């Protein structure tokens, strides 16, 4: 699955493999750009747009990780549900004047950037330095296997997740209702 680096020939840009690589690079770029837009744009709606772009990129990355199923679920859930919910909240709750981000103190920006850079750098160094053990696969990770595992080994978690979702929906309804009545 993960052959040693030396064995892979560097493909040229115009070969099929090269094209695939380019697509992957584009996906990465989309992801990071989307993330940056999501965290830096002044208007919240643009932030949501950035989030969507980022999630489409992440879905593409998942596709490269051999799991189209998760990639599609990513789009379906994040783009179709989460992003729409957030947009709704923006429209319902935030008048436009208040959507600008402003930092309460000028130090917050650099501080945030520093912390983020530290964490990113640390994690990356850790990731690269560590020797990850590679084990042989016991199945191909197809949708069918996911289904079987979900209903056997992970059935408890599956049920719990269902309950969590149910409670979340009911809770959300109650909170939003309470807010309206006041």
């Amino acid at each position, binding site marked *: 699955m993960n052959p040693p680096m030396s064995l892979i020939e560097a493909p040229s840009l115009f070969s099929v493999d090269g094209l695939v690589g380019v697509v992957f690079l584009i996906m990465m770029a989309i992801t990071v750009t989307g993330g940056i837009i999501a965290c830096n744009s002044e208007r919240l709606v643009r932030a949501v747009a950035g989030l969507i772009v980022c999630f489409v990129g992440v879905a593409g990355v998942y596709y490269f990780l051999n799991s189209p199923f998760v990639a599609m679920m990513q789009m379906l859930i994040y783009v179709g549900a989460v992003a729409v919910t957030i947009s709704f909240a923006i429209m319902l*709750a935030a008048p436009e004047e208040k959507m600008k981000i402003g930092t309460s103190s000028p130090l917050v920006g650099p501080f945030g950037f520093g912390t983020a850079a530290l964490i990113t750098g640390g994690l990356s160094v850790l990731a690269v330095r560590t020797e990850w053990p590679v084990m042989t696969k*016991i199945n191909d990770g197809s949708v069918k296997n996911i289904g079987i595992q979900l209903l056997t080994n992970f059935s408890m978690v599956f049920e719990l997740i269902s309950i969590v979702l149910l409670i979340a929906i009911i809770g959300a309804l109650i909170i939003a209702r309470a807010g309206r009545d006041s």
Partner: protein
Amino acid sequence: MSIFTLYNNLNTFLILGALLFGIGIYGIITRRTLIGMLIASELLLAGASINFMAFNRFTAPDPVVGQIFTLFIMAIAAAEAAIGLSIVIAVYSHFKSIDAEDTVQLKG
């Protein structure tokens, strides 16, 4: 190692995950509105999911577990978004603001 074969390398994904995580952290710190923070936290979750998927693809023996975990994270994220946004709306209709600092007084 060519730049075109990056997708065959575990480290690429791990660094990408770390990047997203870092962006999310930055967003959470700098954003003042609750919705902005929520968006940033979604990025954090995405970064974590990418790590799960990457290990799932490159190292784990059973390539199903990581996917299932990612699915669970998505479910949690959706639930979180729903709850978070209903809180935002409730807060807004109470304080007429979703700025986190305007809402520090937690009395009824």
